[in-house]
């Protein structure tokens, strides 16, 4: 499955945030979106997940024009972990991940089925947080919390994971191990789009890099050693 963006633009308050973004993002790959603060990374993720409607351009999900789909239909393809996400107070890791199976629109009498429980357990194990399942999420370290959120994203069984600066605030070891896990998940078939500022790890692990400068794609391709040189500060 591929996502095709053709001349996608987004304007907010008379300011162009994304301008003529054209690229292809495929599943079974870890794609890293890099750029300075304000370059438009988060806006691009929000446009992909159906939260924002582009001003112009086309966004195709496996050949289907996303503008013909409702936000709910678009959401079926993407699990989103927004930047700076906070866990709800007092939730255990299991409770948090189990919410990923929750269907809010037909939910008055809904309960976790055996299949749901198995899926939650499998995702907890896949993200190495199985032994933490009874701990409160806010008591965990930053790295463990991000793994719990990743399990929450995985349990939804969607094709693409959109992770917005998920690694902020983690130490280098936690980041490395998180990137390794993402790489494994991508090789198992997930399409992962991660916004990040960790250029060294991007070089080591990413399958593909998109560099955004001032809302435009200035580089697209395999990771290169001089990624830092490709970035320019965003306009004030």
């Amino acid at each position, binding site marked *: 499955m591929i996502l095709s963006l053709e001349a996608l633009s987004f304007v907010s308050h008379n300011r162009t945030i994304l301008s003529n973004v054209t690229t292809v993002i495929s599943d079974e790959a870890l794609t890293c979106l890099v750029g300075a603060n304000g370059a438009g990374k988060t806006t691009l993720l929000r446009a992909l997940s159906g939260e924002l409607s582009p001003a112009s351009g086309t966004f195709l999900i496996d050949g289907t024009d996303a503008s013909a789909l409702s936000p709910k239909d678009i*959401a079926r393809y993407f699990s989103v972990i*927004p930047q700076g996400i906070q866990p709800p107070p007092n939730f255990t890791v299991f409770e948090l991940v189990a919410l990923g199976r*929750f269907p809010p629109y037909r939910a008055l009498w809904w309960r976790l089925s055996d299949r749901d429980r198995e899926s939650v357990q499998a995702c907890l194990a896949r993200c190495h947080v199985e032994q933490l399942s009874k701990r409160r999420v806010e008591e965990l370290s930053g790295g463990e919390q991000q793994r719990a959120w990743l399990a929450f994203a995985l349990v939804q069984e969607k094709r693409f994971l959109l992770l917005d600066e998920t690694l902020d605030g983690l130490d280098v070891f936690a980041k490395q191990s998180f990137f390794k896990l993402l790489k494994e998940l991508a090789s198992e078939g997930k399409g992962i789009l991660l916004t990040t500022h960790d250029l060294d790890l991007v070089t080591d692990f990413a399958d593909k890099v998109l560099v955004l400068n001032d809302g435009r794609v200035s580089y697209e391709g395999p990771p290169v050693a001089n990624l830092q040189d490709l970035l320019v500060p965003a306009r004030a």
Partner: protein
Amino acid sequence: MRRVLLVMGVLILILVLGVLIGVALGPVKLEAHRLISAILLRGDTTAHVLVWDLRMPRVAAALLVGACLGGAGCLLQSSTRNPLGDPQLFGLGGGAAVVQALAMAGLLSIGTWGLFGLSVLVSLVGAGAIAFFASRQGLSPARLALIGVSISALAAAAATGILAGARVFSQQSLNFIGGSFVNLGWQDVLPALPFFGIGILLALPVLGNLNVLALGDRVAVNLGAEPNRTRVIAIASSGILGGAAVAVAGLVGFVGLLVPHLARLLIGHDTRAIFIVSIPLGAAITLYADQAARLLFMPSEIPVGLVTALLGAPLMIYVARRVL
């Protein structure tokens, strides 16, 4: 699910016991056989009047007001992701309080049903203000609560001013401001029932959405929920419930704030279960608080709001230390 059923079972037993205390005890003693006969609609007229015309309406009022406040508190806390969500604290009851004060001062005479309708309507306006502020991204829970407290304080001041200006008997004013079930008859309680029903029925379809709203709007949308629509319906429902509660008993504090936290301690984080449990739990707390207000200093009484504050404040401090 088993835990929810267990808690509901225990709460029903507690409620039945509370109702029996409410109709059996009081300044006029009633022997057991006369009480049972009166409950079964047999026996002497005095016992019948005492049970069915004096004590039972008061018990029903306490149950209904507590249920309304418990449900409204749960809806406000979950829809605004704010642990301080409470119909009084968020100012939903403030407008209804002004309406009631105008009626007590003789400045508004539109009949009981009209008064209930107007109280709920004004409460819905307050709910609209809270929904507006709650929909603004980046507004912290504390700021939302401060806006609510300001609206509430303003409304309470206006209600007090109206009562003082009209020289309403001070005990009556005190009962209203502190919340009270004194001298309530069926005609004061029954008009609240349809609003209670509407408020609850309105909330049921959005409980599932409220469950995922705890994760933030962006993730909730990604799971298929509709945060804005959910928030509007939940807050409107709490406005209806909060307005009906004020129209019956005045400003009973702490119940809406405390009950959802206690429910959460009892049965976990599922908003659907918290809402279902908050209704009988609010009813039980309010009923027992009213019995304490009625019986502790017999034959005189204290406002029920005083008891809910005395019970609620330390419990709330405990809850705050434990879960907030």
